[in-house]
């Protein structure tokens, strides 16, 4: 991937530092059957993380605690429990400003409590890895899976990836560091999974040896000065942008926001290479498609199987990156579709909105089925919804 003097050397734990590409594509992998929380532990074990800060909230608590074990074992440089999520994200920011590779996890109400930090991370170009194990955020209290949370962070400017399975989860965590830390990207990344559906579910995952690790983060590739008094300029600005009512300060703010958005777009080329594209297509020449992300795709795949048994063929489009959103890819993949179903685990239907905004003739999009508040979405429910809509459309066509 890049020439790096660390490659081939050994870290304090005796892990061999290898080229990321070797770790991702060439190193032999062994089969494990483990929960999503354990997947976090195994990914972070190989990620050369300098600092991790945790706070308990279901369903991410187990993963966050296991990262603490890694710290005791010496795989993670520094670790502690912060006082609340707003503070934790501030502590992560501090560590990242100080040049550390930083990892943390959060869920649901914790994510919203921490929210103020995310656009700040983006504006400060801090490539922090945030693992979001999403769950319900509204009252009455719910600790159940619900993806509304992702819809709420969509426009913070972070890279947002959504993993479907334990395997995705492992790979996205490691690859996410690499993409987020590219000098032309250098942004925080949220690797999202559906809480419980992935975090607490035992699933198959192929993992390379624990004797291998990613190269450490090189903070001096940061497009912004690292806050360590090791590099000039020590004086960041001649005049502060803040609260100065003049055109230049507005323009500076605006162009910086555009630049961080552009940096997010620039992540495409790295992500396409590492994830094999921003979307994954299956039978997209069919007229009926399911397009979604995360567990909704997994359920969609099962629904496709059930429908195939009845002779109804449907295709699947899995969206891997919510930001940057794969507009062109989705347009291409759906160009033959007559009906596009967007199953979602939230009440808002943010994914359907994104897709509708991306494609022509968006009356083709059927928003749903939706479940929320932790409700499960059995494949049978998706099948029923697809059949209902198909019957309705047929009826409408007949009447016309």
């Amino acid at each position, binding site marked *: 991937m890049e020439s790096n003097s660390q490659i081939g050397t050994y870290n304090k734990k005796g892990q061999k530092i290898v080229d990321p590409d070797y770790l991702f594509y060439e190193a032999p992998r062994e089969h494990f059957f483990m929960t999503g929380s354990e997947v976090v532990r195994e990914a972070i074990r190989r990620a050369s993380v*300098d*600092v991790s*800060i945790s706070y308990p909230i279901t369903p991410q608590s187990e993963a966050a605690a296991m990262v603490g074990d890694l710290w005791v074992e010496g795989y993670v*440089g*520094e670790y*502690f429990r*912060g*006082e*609340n999520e*707003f*503070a*934790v*994200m*501030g*502590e*992560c*920011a*501090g*560590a*990242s*400003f*100080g*040049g*550390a590779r*930083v990892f943390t996890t959060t869920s649901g109400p914790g994510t919203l409590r921490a929210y*103020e*930090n995310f656009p*700040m991370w983006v504006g*400060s170009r801090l490539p922090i890895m945030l693992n979001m194990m999403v769950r319900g955020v509204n009252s009455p209290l719910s600790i159940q899976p619900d993806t509304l949370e992702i819809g709420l962070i969509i426009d913070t400017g972070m890279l947002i990836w959504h993993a479907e399975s334990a395997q995705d989860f492992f790979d996205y965590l490691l690859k996410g560091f690499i993409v987020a830390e590219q000098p032309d990207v250098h942004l925080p990344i949220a690797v999202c999974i559906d809480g419980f559906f992935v975090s607490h579910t035992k699933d198959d995952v192929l993992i390379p040896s624990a004797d291998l690790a990613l190269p450490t983060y090189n903070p001096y590739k940061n497009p912004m*000065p690292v*806050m*360590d*008094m*090791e*590099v*000039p*300029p*020590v*004086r*960041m*600005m*001649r*005049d*502060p942008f*803040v*609260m*100065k009512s003049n055109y230049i300060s507005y323009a500076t703010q605006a162009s910086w926001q555009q630049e961080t958005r552009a940096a997010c777009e620039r992540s495409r080329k790295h992500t396409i290479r590492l994830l094999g594209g921003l979307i994954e297509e299956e039978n997209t020449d069919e007229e009926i498609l399911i397009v979604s992300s995360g567990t909704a795709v997994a359920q969609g795949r099962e629904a496709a199987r059930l429908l195939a048994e009845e002779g109804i063929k449907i295709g699947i489009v899995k969206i891997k990156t919510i930001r940057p959103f794969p507009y062109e890819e989705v347009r291409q993949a759906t160009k033959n579709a007559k009906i596009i179903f967007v199953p979602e685990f939230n009440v808002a239907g943010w994914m359907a909105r994104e897709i509708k905004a991306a494609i022509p003739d968006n009356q083709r999009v059927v928003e749903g089925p939706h479940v929320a508040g932790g409700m499960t979405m059995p494949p049978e429910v998706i099948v029923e919804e697809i059949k209902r809509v198909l019957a309705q459309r047929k009826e409408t066509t007949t009447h016309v």
Partner: protein
Amino acid sequence: MSKEKIKINTEFYDIMPVEYQELVEEGTYGKEGRGWKDVGESKELIEEHSLCAGCPESIAFRYVLACLPNPEDTIMVGSTGCTSLVFPHVAVHNIHSLFGNQNAVASGLKRALSYRFPDKVKDVVVLAGDGATVDIGLDMTLQSWFRQEKFTTICFDNELYANTGGQSSGLMQKGFVAKMAPAGKKFEKVNLPEIAKVSGCHYVAKMTVSKPNRVEKAIRQAILIAREIGPTYIQLYTPCILEIGKQMMEGLQEMRDSEGPNKRFEFEEYISEEAKAYLKTVAPKKKKRKEISA
């Protein structure tokens, strides 16, 4: 960072701002025994800023910057408020992230720097207003002390929210009529120095900035103790002359009026036993500061 690192390539010298050139030529990075007496005869590590004419906070800023024992390896963390208008003009690396999370940011920063530079002294200093320290950020202020994070917290206490136009704050005096306390503030000025003592701070000082010698000694002790022992806290009265209805030349008098016996800002200092013992070990070596930080 040594002064070497900020030296300007001769080819670019003429296009660099004059303030930067002065900083390279006359800045006090690495100077032994630096203190407020350097001002007027060297380039200060703070540049022209946009605070009000006569603002005592500006005086405090000058003293703090002049008295940092190790500015070449000091990183400051600020918060939102009047102080955030000054930090862009400060010649040490400094972070503004959000309002109230300054002690959280400093915790992460200090730990990252200790991990990355195990053999180097990297001082972290938080400098924020009273709203940031005591109201919105109190949780993180206290928790960083509970966790014994090794950095210094300096609170510029002007007893109100100055930058937003004079609203009441937790450090405002009881009975003071201000925006958002239209019938007078209902509860006592929060006694953060006392809270700091029981929350694990090893050095606590409360004063005005009317006496630069005293400020210098406090800053120096607080930073040295934080480096070796644990958290330290300094509360400085920096009245907002604008919001308390004073003329721009009256700030100094206001401070002097507030520091007499039994007044709100009567000088108070607390040093933990552990910190006292430590100070004894560094006192004779004061002139060999370089060795300590090496």
